[in-house]
């Protein structure tokens, strides 16, 4: 029997948040999503706002459980996935 899919918390920041229109949501990712890159592709297909937000997905940064991840990193069992543009703090 397959494990129940993990519920993940997705967080969106800055112009990505503005484009998708939500700050956070809980989702179960489909089995086809294993890397950060897969996730961004899947998000892009979730409607017009998401297509707009993830149009240039190569610049988008992702953090898994509050650690920076590369696009080819595996999502694994990360519970909190944050998606944001390049940072401009300091």
């Amino acid at each position, binding site marked *: 029997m397959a494990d129940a899919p993990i519920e993940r918390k997705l967080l969106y920041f*800055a112009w990505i948040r503005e484009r998708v229109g939500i700050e956070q949501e809980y989702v179960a990712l489909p089995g086809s999503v294993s890397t950060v890159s897969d996730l961004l592709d899947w998000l892009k297909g979730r409607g017009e706002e998401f297509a707009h937000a993830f149009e240039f997905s190569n610049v988008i940064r992702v953090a898994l459980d509050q650690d920076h991840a590369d696009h080819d990193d595996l999502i694994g069992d990360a519970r909190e996935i944050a998606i944001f543009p*390049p940072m*401009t703090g300091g």
Partner: protein
Amino acid sequence: MLKVRVQEDDFDTTTEVAALTHGRTDIGAVATFTGLCRGEGETLSALELEHYPGMAAKQIETAAKAAMERWPIDGMTIIHRHGRIEPGEQIVLVIAASRHRDAAFDGARYVMDFLKTDAPFWKKERRVDGTDAGWVEAKEADDKARERWSNAP
């Protein structure tokens, strides 16, 4: 000794330096860096700083700990503000205290360079006429500044 704060409120440099060095006679050098909001030729009314609460402090701590392992640093204090910040106001403070000036300077600069590229803060500009001037874009120069620490001695 490491203190990291992410807050809306302003801060006072003298108070923070005193808190870090109080009662100690082994510190010979304190380097500080303060980032201020620029007015961009009177066109900007404010910056709105968005942040990712848990991760912001965590990333700043990671950078500070790396600096403290790399150089003989006796204490660091880092404060980063979020929310609305007007021209001339303070945004960020990094203090590095050490026996020696090179470690203090290097430590403060290293943390600032990592803050720019790795700490989850985003700046939106608000114009004097009230309109939204969009999100500040990340600078390639900041990526280069961060990279130089990989090659430096």
